[in-house]
């Protein structure tokens, strides 16, 4: 009897969960389906059965040079993430392994820089970029993305490094390991998973950043966010192509995201929820 109730319970929960999941996922699914429809099919009313053409993907590349914004997105997100890691790893390391009375204050202050509304500094940043010739440059945007994500990177690394037990260091020292050996043979292997998760989450955040990337770029440095936003004018006739461009823009990050669900919670709540 008990088992019977449990099975029935499980089946009804499963049905409910799948319905909710499919509704939430529907806009993405429909975008993918529309991307392999022809343009007349795309506006011909609701249909989940596309004719399965890949022409839209080819057209987006030949007419709009899709590869360029795609490569910009890759360069900006990977570049800014690596730059942020290079700057943040030593800080997080120092804060986790030689904490002082002020460590907590510094961390909180770093977090507070993240609270500054981007739009509040739009004018000065725009003017500075203009005066230094950084508008629409990959270098300028990489620096920008590095700065806005740096606090999250430091925080995430700190919460990971903090979990590395100090006793291991002591044990290594007792065995006669020098500082360098300590770092290379003991700490680095333990820190790699934390660094990898931070890398992953930061690439996702940088890839999807849609304020500075849209405002500070026009054509040369424009990543996918700006590229897609440029399709905003009401032209109902190219939905299939827009869907193809959208699918390609979200696919890589969707897959990365699926692998980083757990780190996402931790990273975005600054370690407050694990």
């Amino acid at each position: 009897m008990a088992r019977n109730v449990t099975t029935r319970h499980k089946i009804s929960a499963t049905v409910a969960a799948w319905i909710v999941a499919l509704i939430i996922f529907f806009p993405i699914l429909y975008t993918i389906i529309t991307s392999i429809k022809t343009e007349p099919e795309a506006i011909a009313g609701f249909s989940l059965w596309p004719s399965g053409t890949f022409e839209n993907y080819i057209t987006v590349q030949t007419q709009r040079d899709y590869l360029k914004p795609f490569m910009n997105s890759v360069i900006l997100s990977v570049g800014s993430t690596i730059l942020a890691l290079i700057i943040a790893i030593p800080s997080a390391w120092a804060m986790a392994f030689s904490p002082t009375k002020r460590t907590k204050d510094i961390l909180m202050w770093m977090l507070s820089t993240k609270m500054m509304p981007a739009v509040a500094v739009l004018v000065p940043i725009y003017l500075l970029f203009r005066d230094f010739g950084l508008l629409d440059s990959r270098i300028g945007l990489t620096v920008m993305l590095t700065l806005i994500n740096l606090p999250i990177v430091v925080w995430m690394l700190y919460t990971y490094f903090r979990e590395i037990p100090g006793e291991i260091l002591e044990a290594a020292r007792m065995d006669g390991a020098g500082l360098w050996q300590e770092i290379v043979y003991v700490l680095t292997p333990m820190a790699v998973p934390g660094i990898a998760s931070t890398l992953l989450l930061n690439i996702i955040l940088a890839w999807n950043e849609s304020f500075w990337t849209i405002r500070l770029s026009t054509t040369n440095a424009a990543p996918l966010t700006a590229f897609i936003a440029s399709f905003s004018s009401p032209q109902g006739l190219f939905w299939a192509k827009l869907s193809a461009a959208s699918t390609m823009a979200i696919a890589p990050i969707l897959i990365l995201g699926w692998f980083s669900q757990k780190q996402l919670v931790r990273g975005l709540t600054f370690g407050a929820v694990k």
Partner: protein
Amino acid sequence: MATQNTKTLARLMMAPSVLLLLVWMIVPLAMTLWFSFQNYNLLDPSNVSFTGLFNYQFFYTDPAFFQSIWNTLVIVGGVLLITVIGGIAIALLLDQPIFGQGIVRILIISPFFVMPPVAALVWKNMIMNPSYGVFADISKFFGLRPIDWFAQYPLFSIVIIVAWQWLPFATLILLTALQSLDGEQKEAAEMDGANFLNRFIYLVVPHLARSITVVILIQTIFLLGVYAEILVTTNGGPGYASTNLAFLIYRTALLGYDVGGASAGGIIAVVLANIVAFFLMRAVGKNLDR
């Protein structure tokens, strides 16, 4: 073991990130503050003069300002309402034993990874378009007249899109918190005859309280600055019907070329964000002490 040497080393290691963030925080903000007291128009850059509080007065007396503040509150409040309630409900559902849990989780989390311009355009064109969208198809199926979402309910439409993007975030965090709830406690409550509602009110809600706070605060920080979704759907219109404070500042700065006015608006946005930040910092800070 913390010798003077390691302390110096630690300071050196922290210096780059601290200095960078210090410059990043102080320079643009000081410039914004400075510009906010200037009469400075990009179309007439040679004619810059000190105007005291005129920009604030100008911004404050502009009817668009109050509408934008109201719209900002509606977006933040509306999205929070949908995502927190929806997030709790879905998290409770996913916490049950179900077939295909992994795939369901992946499907539900996905919208969070969709970049804002894509999310907004997909909803605008394929879901909410009054002639060809899925909603229109559904209306027609039931013999109703399709709704022109962005003309009739511009703000509500934006709330729906943004809520769709943030619902996964709330769900994932609340689910993570839910899964850390002690199974024995739940069983004990069940044995004592507590029904679902009682267990929910006396066991689950108190356990989730902190995570709900974190979800609300973090989302608020991001929701105060909703921008791309407005840009690609309504462009703030019709009129100012879907212009939030962030969008109004952008309009003033880069479409109106009014550096002084936009800066005054920027300072107001900073003050608003700081009020929220104050509470968030306390919530996160508490966690550090544990």
